[in-house]
């Protein structure tokens, strides 16, 4: 391996750029390369394939660590607590409403009675959009007219879910930028309403992150975690060319696991997130 150190320097630059290009971000990239450099110095990494494997291993361990610490799953909530409440949150346009259509399909197919709450009472035609998804999946929907207090729609939905013995209630919320304190406060209020009506609700709060998001995604996750108590991430639009690497930075800094990935606009385009498959795709 005469020229080995030389190759590594240039190669490390290329690999650093690949990680940056995937939106992994500078701090996480430097952290990964630092560990890799140590492995090179100890002669544990001696060629390009070992180097790539080392980086993949670093990425995988970040994601798996978050999965361990992360999340609540429906199995951890007692059968007597009903309904299981899932709140879907995130900034504007990331794919919340579409994801709910996909989730409703999946959860219903697992044998559950699902109810959807149209708590985006703000945006033009938001409940019309969700109503079409509800119809497509054969899942009932609770909605009110535009301008109603979202906490009121949530309250009605919780009452309806309890009286119908629904297993799962999925709550759609309006897109909101995390730097708008009044909108974040609205989310907080909705959580309190849920918690008063059903013990431990919302049992799952999924933050939807668009795979094209850059470093701002980390700040989104910080604020939503702090104010809305996020329990997991849904990474959408992975069928595009963006790699969604910001989810790795989110996993590392906040220990939030990626629960699902959106891979298209149709009702079946949702998969349970597979960290190994994802890490391999980062290097394609």
């Amino acid at each position: 391996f005469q020229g080995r150190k030389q190759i590594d320097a240039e190669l490390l630059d290329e690999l650093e750029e690949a990680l940056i290009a995937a939106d992994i971000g500078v701090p996480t990239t430097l952290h990964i390369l630092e560990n890799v450099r140590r492995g090179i110095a100890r002669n544990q990494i001696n060629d390009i394939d070992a180097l790539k494997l080392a980086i993949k291993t670093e990425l995988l361990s970040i994601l798996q660590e978050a999965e361990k610490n992360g999340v609540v799953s429906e199995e951890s909530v007692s059968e007597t607590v009903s309904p299981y409440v899932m709140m879907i949150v995130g900034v504007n346009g990331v794919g919340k409403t579409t994801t709910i259509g996909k989730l409703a399909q999946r959860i219903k197919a697992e044998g559950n009675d699902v109810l959807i709450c149209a708590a985006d009472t703000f945006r033009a035609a938001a409940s019309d959009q969700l109503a079409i998804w509800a119809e497509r999946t054969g899942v009932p929907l609770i909605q009110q007219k535009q301008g109603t207090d979202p906490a009121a729609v949530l309250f009605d939905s919780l009452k309806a879910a309890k009286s119908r013995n629904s297993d799962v209630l999925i709550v759609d919320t309006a897109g909101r930028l995390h730097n708008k304190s009044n909108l974040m406060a609205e989310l907080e209020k909705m959580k309190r309403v849920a918690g008063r009506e059903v013990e431990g609700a919302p049992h799952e709060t999924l933050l939807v992150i668009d795979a094209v998001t850059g470093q701002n995604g980390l700040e989104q996750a910080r604020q939503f975690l702090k104010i809305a108590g996020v329990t997991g991430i849904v990474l959408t639009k992975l069928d595009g060319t963006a790699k969604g690497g910001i989810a790795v930075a989110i996993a590392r800094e906040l220990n939030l696991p990626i629960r699902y990935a959106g891979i298209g606009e149709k009702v079946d385009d949702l998969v349970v997130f597979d960290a190994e498959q994802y890490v391999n795709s980062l290097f394609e």
Partner: protein
Amino acid sequence: SLSDKLKRTLKNLRGEGVLTREHVEAALREIRMALLEADVNYKVAKDFIAAVKEKAEGQQVWTELKPSEQVVKIVYDELVELLGGTSSRLVFTKQIPNVVMIVGLQGSGKTTSTGKIAMWLAKNQERKPLLVSTDVYRPAAREQLKVIARATGQSIFEMPETNDARTLAREAYKHAQQTGFDTLLIDTAGRLHIDDELMEELVAIKGETKPIEILFVADAMTGQDAVRSGEEFHRRVGITGVMLTKMDGDARGGAALSIKQVTGQPVKFVGVGEKYDALEPFYPDRIAQRILG
């Protein structure tokens, strides 16, 4: 902020007559970090750094500024120049109607922006706009634009009997011609730049309506991929301008520089909120400051 970081980096270097290579090298690393943190594409950042290096090295040290302040000024000026001071006023012809197409990735803010732009043109350029949604895919997309049209007092063309985007565009065009709307704003469905069929659909709509403006609507929080989507939309459809949305958030908006560099087309408008009057013309100096943090 970048100025603080540069002050710290350069404080032990003596300022003597010219900005030395040492000054500049030390500063460039901080600048690269700031650009990447702001989501400027890493290749665009590389080219930018090279340009700054060339401008900075050997420059006479200005006596009123510290070396760090001088470097920041060079970077800021270069950024403002690249972002380009083109006018954001759309350029219209005598034709009836003039067509403006609104395109971009899913969820970037096109439908909302179509309403905003219509309102802005009516108010600031005395245009008579007609809206049409050619989004035949997304649930309640046409309904969404209809609600927006009603809320902003705009006219909208509807043809519920068809599910073909081309037909909607063509018929809306004819309707505008016959009824004297001087501007036709065409909202299109969000699509991936790698979806051949849908990209072809945009080319077909363009062919039918010969737009004077094709605006690429991009989310301010877009990361490294901005270069790919911007480049591909420009290559296949040909954009004439960019609208950067959700700038009321705290995303630094480096995507603006990336898209400008790779398409050569200017950012014309900025979306600054969910309400339909939340539209501003693009000011390069403001976004330059924001990118540099």
